[in-house]
């Protein structure tokens, strides 16, 4: 038999925004840590590429550039693919609706989720650099710490974009393919795996996309720890611009619920087959 309901307590005020954001960040971090897919995509992918490719026989600069590029690859994979796909999966499964039914402010939900994503992205970048160092790249602890500035900025920009893009992905099954074909060409053309031969217009375009500034600044931070600015005003402007674009689109288009666009057809079918 069910037990009797406990009497209501004395707490009557709604918890504050900051406390809820902290709780949400902790919850989302725990969730990411238990997700095999997020660990594979964001943390292990760059390490595996590094181990397969090696840090190369180039000079110190080349080795650190590759480590930085792969660190950026992991960051972008975590902040964009994992973040956006978990939003789509949560929307389709009803988890987002469950949160929406609570008094959790939407801002706390997103701030907490993005904070957790940034933590995982930072951890991914640190692990990549650690493996690079163990396999011969001349990375230093100071460089790794300095790298966290562009890595965090990049994670924020890509998580913002991921939040926006998630609104346009129709189903959980479509999330990974769509997100991968979106980010991977950008990352490759931006030089995450080293310099690639590309037309001039593409090289110019890449500087305005959110991957190139992260890759360049991350490699720069590894090469010259302590050197300021870590991100040039131009790189910062590009990332800030993408944060703004992502947030603006998310504010207008984000959906907590699966779309009802397919409802009429289903409803018609059910009406015709009734009664149960």
């Amino acid at each position, binding site marked *: 038999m*069910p037990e*009797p*309901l406990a009497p209501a307590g004395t707490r009557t005020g*709604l918890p504050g925004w900051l406390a809820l954001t902290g709780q949400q960040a902790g919850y989302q971090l725990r969730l990411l840590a238990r997700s095999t897919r997020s660990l594979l995509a964001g943390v292990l992918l760059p390490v595996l590429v590094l181990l397969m490719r090696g840090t190369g026989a180039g000079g110190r600069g080349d080795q650190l550039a590759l480590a930085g590029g792969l660190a950026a690859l992991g960051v972008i994979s975590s902040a964009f693919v994992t973040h956006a796909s978990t939003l789509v999966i949560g929307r389709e499964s009803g988890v987002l*609706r469950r949160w929406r039914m*609570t*008094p959790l402010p939407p801002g706390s939900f997103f701030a907490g989720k993005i904070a957790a994503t940034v933590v995982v992205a930072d951890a991914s970048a640190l692990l990549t650099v650690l493996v690079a160092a163990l396999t011969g790249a001349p990375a230093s602890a100071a460089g790794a710490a300095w790298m966290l500035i562009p890595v965090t900025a990049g994670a924020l920009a890509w998580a913002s974009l991921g939040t926006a893009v998630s609104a346009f992905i129709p189903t959980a099954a479509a999330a990974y393919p769509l997100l991968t074909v979106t980010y991977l060409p950008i990352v490759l053309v931006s030089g995450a795996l080293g310099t690639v031969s590309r037309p001039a217009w593409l090289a110019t375009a890449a500087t305005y996309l959110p991957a190139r500034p992260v890759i360049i600044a991350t490699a720069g931070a590894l090469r010259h720890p302590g050197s300021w600015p870590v991100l040039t005003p131009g790189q910062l402007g590009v990332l800030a611009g993408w944060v703004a674009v992502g947030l603006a689109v998310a504010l207008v288009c984000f959906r907590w619920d699966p779309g009802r666009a397919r409802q009429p057809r289903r*409803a*018609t079918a*059910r009406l015709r087959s009734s009664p149960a």
Partner: protein
Amino acid sequence: MTAALGTARGVTATRVPQAWAVQLEKVCKRYGEVTAVDRVSVDIARGTIVAVLGPNGAGKTTLVEMLAGFVTPTSGTIRVLGEDPRRPSRRWRAQVGMVSQATALDPQLTVAEVLAALAGPFPDPLPAGEALGLVGLTGEAQTRVQALSGGQQRRADLAAAIIGRPSLLFLDEPTTGFDPAARRQTWTMIGQLAGRGTTVVLTTHYLEEASQIADRVLVLAAGRVIADATPAALRAQAGGSTVRYPLPAGVRDLPAGLRRHLRPHQNTIVATGTTAAPVLAAIVAWARARRLDLSALEVGPPTLEDAYLALTRDGQTPSHRTEPSHA
């Protein structure tokens, strides 16, 4: 402040706004050319348990989702706990719980972890252990959601819906997938919640569920309310006696006069009202001739299922609906 009760029910009365948990006035929802909910006007008093019944596609889920604020009505007015559910305050959200048709909990985490997180935003949540006790999942607190059976996941979802001590609870087919014991435990829990003032609006396909726990039943068909009454009043509306005779296994050569009354999915002859007596006589005569066992033959008052099937089969229009004995 008082206001006249809507005339849609044909009842004149006064109402105190605070007494209503839910107020709908001529609410419509259309998806393209399909009308999912059609001019529904209903008031639901606080502390009552209302069951929404209807065939698949009748508009039950659309109605509940409009009440919860997830679907915008095409026209009409909805007030839930005094607010428009499409523009709810945080205080409103703290008072409303919901169980949707699918389990909505993160599968990688334990039940206790999920409930603790979901309790965080509420001002005075139930302890997670108590919520689990209410749904009979105390022993599964440290089990990951993905490791629970389907029925247990639904119960965990129910625990999540009540974690904030809601004063209004929407349950969309809440006991689907439950074993009989879990279903009865849930009914007890819902009764307890209503006893302390929680209003419960549930959709269900289990007519026994509606019969057992609901104070009031709304029957929807093609988006319209075709009946609005207490379960007892609906049964009475079906009229007279009901004859039920589950056919013994292997019996197929049913006379045409009885075949008309066969419910194939139950393999049972059912006749209600004026047809009950002649069908009873026909069953007895046929069974005697075939030397069939009649120990399963039942004669009694109509069940809610009989009343429901009569309503939905006849396609009764809203103008024929039964008035509830309470609001």
